[in-house]
């Protein structure tokens, strides 16, 4: 498989590290793993860490949007960090920055979420 999903829980925040290529073929894995994790009562907010995400297309946007809706229903917020230039363009073009906060790295994203909660 060309995409790895690593999940880490830090208090009420779920950190999702995506490594590899996120397209239609690999989107299901991301959806299933994240959906299940967000269902847990301890998870309030999500950080999508994209440092090692080397490719993403609109299938990735669909998955992110789907998880955002799931999280919003629970009252949580979603942030992204370590976004490379081409992924940044896609998020910008699709208007997702209106609903996602963007941070330089996981530490900055975590700090901002601690202020929220």
């Amino acid at each position, binding site marked *: 498989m*060309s995409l790895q999903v690593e999940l880490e829980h830090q208090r009420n925040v779920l950190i999702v590290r995506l490594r590899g*290529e996120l*397209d*239609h*073929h690999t*989107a299901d894995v991301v*959806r299933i793993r994240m959906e299940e994790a967000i269902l847990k009562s301890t998870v309030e907010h999500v950080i999508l860490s994209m440092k090692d995400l080397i*490719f*993403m*297309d*609109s*299938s990735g*946007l*669909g*998955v992110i*949007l*789907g998880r955002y809706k799931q999280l919003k229903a629970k009252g949580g917020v979603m942030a992204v960090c370590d976004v490379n*230039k*081409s992924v940044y363009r*896609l998020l910008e*073009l*699709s208007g997702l920055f209106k609903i996602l906060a963007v941070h330089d790295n996981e530490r900055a994203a975590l700090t901002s979420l601690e202020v929220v909660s």
Partner: protein
Amino acid sequence: MNETRAANTMRVTFSARSENEAFARITVAAFITHLDPTLDELNDLKTVVSEAVTNAIIHGYDNDPSRFVTIEASIEDETLHLIVSDEGNGIEDLELARSPLYTSKPELERSGMGFTIMENFMDRFEVTSEPGRGTRIEMSKRIESKKALFN
């Protein structure tokens, strides 16, 4: 240099399987290597190929792996021409399909951004489709080689 050079072309046909999306992206990227594209240009092209092929698989063929997607590419001077075609369902309302965020399959968590991305990332974008006969996407983009940037 020699202006009358014939275009360099390639054509690849593959099963409409999602695992071939990566294959399609890499194939087109490899084909244009000698134009010495920048990383950004390569990434844009990979995204565009991925969008077109994914559309063919999901919307053209409803994920039927026995069907085929074809990519034709040609390089003319510094311009890449791409055609991605299927012989699947076709699109009833092209204008609706092209509007940002519209998707005919919301249940599949599609973002509805495929056409918008292709239009934005390429210099030329054209889609023709006939319900029941298939869809053909024609695009082109001039590749500004890294060498050109230094001059």
